[in-house]
């Protein structure tokens, strides 16, 4: 009996190791827990784009793409387990959608020589490819977002923010703390007063922070939130009658799940994004024909076109383009993670290429190089319309303030290089 159980257990563990074949792009997703509502939409978009490529084009360069999914629940320990469980199966690239997990994987992935693609999250200074050889975070990162938000506020105020008060409500984790340094620099440069209000994860409890906001009366509130924290914050802001048009969320605080629970009170809430939203892109014709109608969509396609679905799809688009580039460079369709890394580094997604993909003006043009793993950093602002129940883009792609960001990235990546004993390349 005892022996039988042990063999059964061993068998079950062994079964976890998948067979080698195809191009493997693991999807470290989370569909459960306080971040599940957001994570599930992203994972669907990520899966569906690869399904589309498999169904329509027979994969990339004739190779089918396999997307094994692993549930992390936004938990770093489970993230490590998922990474270890999938890396043996020939995984080409990881996109864990969690800054905490990314921080853990950065040194591991470099040691295992597997690229990490962390669009809009993860470690900002990974933009410096000279230090972070295996990490790519194009098209935009947290500091780009902070800078674009401040630029937008500058535009609103005729180029002058002096004497204004800007508060940051943030998820008290590596993720939420990322923009603080940049915002402090920007506050010094533009003369606004900056204050930061931490909210302990998962963030259902934030009455006191909003009470403080009501007392301090900031002119603008920025938010770095994720999961249930977003909806709670928007609800609390509505409760203290904070004007929604002065409340700007980062990329991760601006999806349908965040605003819909608040109903009409969320009208006018703004958020950053680095890609388009909605279904008005030609790609969705193909998506409907090859993925949704035949019933192959992830989870039945219930979130197609939402902000986070689009973002998951966008991440998949960039990865697919990098794979194609890598195949071209390597001259073989069965690429290795190291070859994919070269593909990422040589990646160029122009406006024309996006149009070819059926996503005109969906994202900024991306050009990566040995030094620059983060693209241009351009982002735009979207606003929630509660009556129409949709997000509308209200600005064009805006360039962040690289004069401020450049030195900060250099400083942070140098500190990492020193700590980890990395000799900068390029």
């Amino acid at each position, binding site marked *: 009996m005892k022996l039988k159980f042990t063999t059964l257990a061993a068998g079950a563990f062994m079964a976890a190791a998948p067979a080698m074949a195809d191009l493997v792009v693991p999807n470290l997703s989370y569909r*459960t827990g306080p971040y*599940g509502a957001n994570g599930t939409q992203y994972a669907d978009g990520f899966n569906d784009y690869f399904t589309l490529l498999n169904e329509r084009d027979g994969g990339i360069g004739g190779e089918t793409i396999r997307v094994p999914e692993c*549930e992390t629940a936004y938990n770093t320990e489970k993230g490590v387990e998922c990474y270890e469980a999938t890396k043996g199966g020939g995984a080409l690239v990881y996109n864990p959608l969690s800054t*905490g997990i990314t921080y853990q994987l950065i*040194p591991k992935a470099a040691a295992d020589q597997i690229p990490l693609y962390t669009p809009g999250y993860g470690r900002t200074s990974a933009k410096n490819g000279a230090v972070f050889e295996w990490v790519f975070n194009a098209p935009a990162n947290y500091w780009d977002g902070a800078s674009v938000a401040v630029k937008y506020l500058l535009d609103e105020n005729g180029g002058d923010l002096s004497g204004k008060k800007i508060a940051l409500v943030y998820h008290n984790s590596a993720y939420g703390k990322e923009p603080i340094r940049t915002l402090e620099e920007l506050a010094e440069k533009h003369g606004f007063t900056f204050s930061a209000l931490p909210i302990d*994860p998962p963030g259902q409890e934030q009455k006191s922070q909003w009470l403080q906001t009501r007392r301090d009366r900031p002119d603008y509130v920025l938010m770095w939130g994720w999961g249930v924290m977003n909806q709670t914050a928007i609800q609390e802001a509505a409760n203290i009658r904070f004007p929604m048009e002065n409340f700007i969320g980062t990329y991760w605080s601006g999806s349908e799940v965040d605003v819909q629970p608040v109903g009409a009170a969320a009208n006018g809430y703004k958020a950053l994004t680095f890609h388009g939203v909605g279904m008005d892109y030609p790609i969705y014709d193909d998506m409907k024909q090859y993925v949704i109608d035949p019933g192959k969509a992830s989870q039945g396609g219930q979130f197609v076109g939402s902000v986070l679905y689009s973002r998951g799809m966008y991440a998949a688009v960039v990865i697919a383009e990098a794979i194609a580039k890598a195949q071209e460079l390597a001259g073989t369709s069965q690429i290795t993670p190291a070859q994919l890394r070269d593909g990422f580094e040589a990646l160029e997604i122009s406006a024309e290429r996006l149009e070819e993909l059926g996503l005109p003006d969906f994202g900024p043009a991306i050009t990566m190089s040995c030094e620059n793993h983060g693209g241009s950093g351009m982002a735009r602002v979207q606003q929630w319309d509660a009556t129409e129940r949709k997000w509308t883009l209200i600005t064009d792609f805006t360039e962040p303030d690289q004069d401020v960001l450049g030195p900060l990235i250099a400083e942070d990546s140098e500190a990492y290089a020193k700590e*980890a004993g990395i000799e900068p390349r390029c």
Partner: protein
Amino acid sequence: MFYREAGDFKTTYRDDGQTFPIRLDRWGYYVILAAAFLVVPIYIDAYWANAVLVPFLIYAIAALGLNVLTGYAGQVSLGTGGFMAVGAYAVYKLMTSFPEVSIVIHILLAGGITAAVGVLFGLPSLRIKGFYLAVATLAAQFFLVWLFNKVPWFYNYSASGQITAPTRRVFGYAVTGPTTSAPAKYLICLCFLFVLAWAVRNLTRGTLGRKWMAIRDMDIAAEIIGVNPLTAKLSAFAVSSFLIGIAGALLFAVYLGAADANEAFGINKSFLVLFMIIIGGLGSIFGSFAGAAFLVLLPVLLKNILVGSFGWPTNLAAHIELMIVGALIVFFLIVEPHGLARLWQLTKEKLRLWPFPH
């Protein structure tokens, strides 16, 4: 049949009082030790190390630590996560400040620092008991995590507040950092666990352990027969925190490599370790191991069976897994409130008589 005790005579007190008085048990223990030290490191791969064995070994140390405090000395604590954080941040500060000193010394020092902090937070136990003490240690949990988030000195002023373990070597082999091999990770944790479990087992059999148990069973009676509650309770806090600090240091430095106080050492961790000792068995060394194994290995096993073998969607599997683990906890507590250790003890008694029960 399983236990052939015929001819196994004990002629000295020493023989009679040993940890494994039955010869077959003793052999089993040596075989397991030999397998753990000699066989497993040869076959271990990165998945087995990082997903299964290393977390099991580390949580076993943490469970041992909490078992000293709660199981042996009867002081309920919900501050385990906070004390693990002390161990983790202590080892981080030591590793980065004194890179030339061996990591083993740093981990032991981190345990020592945690012991000091534990004694400090254990002081209220002299006045308050039971639920009230649980709340006081809960305060330690929240205070410590808040402290490590609030004061940038603890995380070396890094932008994100994360701490990352640099590479450190023992006998030329990396045991922390990204290049660590699976056997190195496993062996360093196993060595710590072996030494600590051996030490705790002997502590609990000696004067100190008897004092703890006397305090646990009835503190007034213990005081009357001459047990000093001050030294007994505070030594329990110190030993317990020492172990928990080492577990925290290993969790951060060897297992995770990077950590964030809120996420890695939150209140969930305190509950997890508390569940381990409740399910495993309060006041039992074996129980600490069994509880850690149950709560670390079962979710991984279920995940692999449900997703890997049955091909279920990951979210469904994750939900079912929570339900199964929860149901099993309730089931075990109803069927055997004294935990897996008692279950094992009963099985052993039955096996000693089998096949001729009375």
